[in-house]
């Protein structure tokens, strides 16, 4: 591998547009396939006693988390470490972000260290795009508001493929609070890329108007999960019931009508959840702890899929994920 970042000036000029992973829309089915294959290779390497690979030695990865996260932040950090990259994880709390520094200024400050990748989690939609327009690093979206969470969708595909042997033709029922879920948005698009189908099921006010136009069926009828190969449960947040929002009358009623219980499942169905789970709200504890639950497998997949994403961005040729966005030109 050529260490092009050592002769930055010349290399940058000749380089193809910087690749980022901001949205599932940045991917083609070929790239998804390549990423999943790379993740499988990494998975095998993790079975060895010596788990660290020298692949990204000397590379710098910055994790910038503006929103609380346990699994995504730890997964990205460990992925970078397993590939021998230097990794720095910054959380908004206790940093200069607290002092009112703008996202652009924080990005410029961190870019002065010439990171190869910036991984960003932010409460606001479009923050990763803004960063991509400011830095010369590759940008990976680790979740922006209710918009996108592309590495979650990729790890979900990986988990389904490992558990069920294939992706094409799979039927996935996504159940719960679709409106507030970046996971649902990314997953529907990702399933479309691999020729699987999705139905989104939830209380009417928690499924966005016109959501079917992104490529899925939409219903409020929980019995539609029957034909699904995978039941994908979304987190139901307590705050959706408070502050006069009235998305549903009560958590109790939500659970009675949409919770995934053993009675609602048929043999052979597997259950997934992006976490963290609310036992007894959107998912019955007996389901969460059953053999059909892939929830822990999802966490394991997260590590190898994020290794694959970092590896792919830093080593593959100019096959486009997404070209650099220049906000000034867009404007």
């Amino acid at each position, binding site marked *: 591998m050529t260490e092009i970042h050592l002769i930055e000036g010349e290399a940058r000029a000749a380089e193809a547009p910087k690749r980022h992973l901001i949205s599932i829309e940045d991917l083609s089915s070929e790239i998804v396939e390549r990423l999943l294959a790379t993740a499988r290779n990494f998975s095998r390497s993790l079975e060895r006693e010596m788990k660290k690979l020298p692949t990204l030695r000397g590379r710098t990865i910055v994790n910038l988390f503006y929103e609380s996260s346990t699994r995504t932040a730890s997964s990205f950090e460990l992925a970078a470490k397993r590939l021998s990259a230097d990794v720095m994880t910054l959380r908004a709390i206790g940093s200069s972000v607290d002092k009112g520094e*703008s*996202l652009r200024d924080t990005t410029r400050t961190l870019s002065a260290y010439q990171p190869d990748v910036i991984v960003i989690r932010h409460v*606001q939609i479009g*923050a990763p795009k803004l960063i991509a327009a400011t830095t010369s690093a590759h940008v990976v979206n680790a979740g922006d508001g*209710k918009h996108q969470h592309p590495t979650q969708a990729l790890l979900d595909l990986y988990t389904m493929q490992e558990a069920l042997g294939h992706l094409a033709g799979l039927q996935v029922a996504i159940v719960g609070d679709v409106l507030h879920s970046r996971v649902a*948005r990314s997953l529907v698009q990702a399933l479309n890329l691999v020729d699987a189908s999705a139905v989104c099921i939830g209380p009417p006010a928690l499924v966005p*108007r*016109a959501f079917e136009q992104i490529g899925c069926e939409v219903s409020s009828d929980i019995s539609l999960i029957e034909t699904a190969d995978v039941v994908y449960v979304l987190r139901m947040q307590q705050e959706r019931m408070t502050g006069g929002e009235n998305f549903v009358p009560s958590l109790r009623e939500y659970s009675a009508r949409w919770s995934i219980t053993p009675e609602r499942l048929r043999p052979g169905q597997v259950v997934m959840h992006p976490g963290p789970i609310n036992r007894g709200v959107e998912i019955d504890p007996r389901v969460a702890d059953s053999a059909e639950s892939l929830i822990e497998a999802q966490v394991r997949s997260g590590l190898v899929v994020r290794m694959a994403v970092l590896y792919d961005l830093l080593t593959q040729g100019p096959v486009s994920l997404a070209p650099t966005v220049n906000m000034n*030109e867009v*404007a």
Partner: protein
Amino acid sequence: MTILHHRGGAAGSLTIRGARVLDPGAGVDALLDVKVEKGVISELAQPSGKKSAGKGVAAEGLVLAPAFVDPHVHLRTPGREDEETIASGTAAAAAGGYCAILAMPNTSPTVDNAAVLGALIELAQEEAVVPTGFMAAISRGLAGEELSEMGELAEAGAAAFTDDGHPVYSASLMRRALQYAGSTGRRLALHCEEPSLSRRGQMHEGAVSAELGLAGYPSVAESVAVGRDLALAAYEAQPLHLMHLSSRESVELLRRALVDGVEVSAEATPHHLCLTDEAVRSLDSNLKMNPPLGSEQDRLALIDALKSGAISCIATDHAPHARQEKDVPFEAAPFGVTGLETAFAALYTNLVEPGLIPLETLLDRLSAGPAHAFDLPVPRIAVGEPANLVLLDLESSWTVREELFRSRSVNSWLLGQTLQGEIVLTVAAGRVVFGSERVVA
């Protein structure tokens, strides 16, 4: 009572030679020499082809029309002079072909008392390049609780009343405002939004908001309020002006009210006439405004209403914002975009060139339409009229760049775009207030 104020200066004399003079209201469409003496149109004559005394503008191949009137401008003064001042905002208006503008009262402090209004009028008399009028608030502090002293404000020169930026929250206060405004002879101009439906909406609710995950602002948040206010205006038999309409449902309510004889006028903005929510996919904060960009159906309904005259005014809702406030993720950005300097070219490019509306209609809705709605002098190209003229080069195309703006703010949705149609010269109240180098040099 004078509603419009400007810094004055000596009225000019000049002759504009050989332009196609197009004043749809006066029924004029001919190649003419237009002579202005001491600010008044003194002669319309067959083109002589020769130079006469005084300043002359060779305008062959150009279109000379009545200058524009913008009933909806945010001048940000007092309070946010970093974003716009009366001087910079009116210079922008001049560059956009305007001879009169009305400024909104949602400043800091709010224009809800005669003292603030009086100070603004004095300032306009010192620095307004283009005649400027000021609307005053319907409710004190725009809080929607108590009426402002509309009688005194009208006497002090308020052009109309509005709580723009906010709806009049309570139906009861709205009714009282209609009743009371009737006694002042000034119209209410309404920002129609039912806040319990728009909530924290960031963009039009539809397929694009579903995909982006941005909180949806449903079109019924506007039309429910339009319906309420039209019903009250009909009941009280008082006139009403509907600001920045954006949805098909609102247009249908407007049409019905006009048929029923309600005295209602309405405006649409260049951005709602040119763009749809599809544009928001870019997540460019210069595409964030309230009301939000609607669907293509909404846009076509607005264009239809503009064509029929149900919507008789084009208003820019010019809303300057500081660079650092817009240079943030979409959800963190404030609502609003600038528009004074690009309105004509944007609409000529997106509506007239593709054949959606005739040039004559565009010129009328930019000038006579808004002037009629607010009882302002209607710009006319006729002998004896004050010179309020705009000279247009329809053959010229130009690219919108930050450096070209006279406004202090650059939050335009058109940055980087190439537009057809350029303002070459603006004469407002008999004074040349804008001239590109090619004619003034």
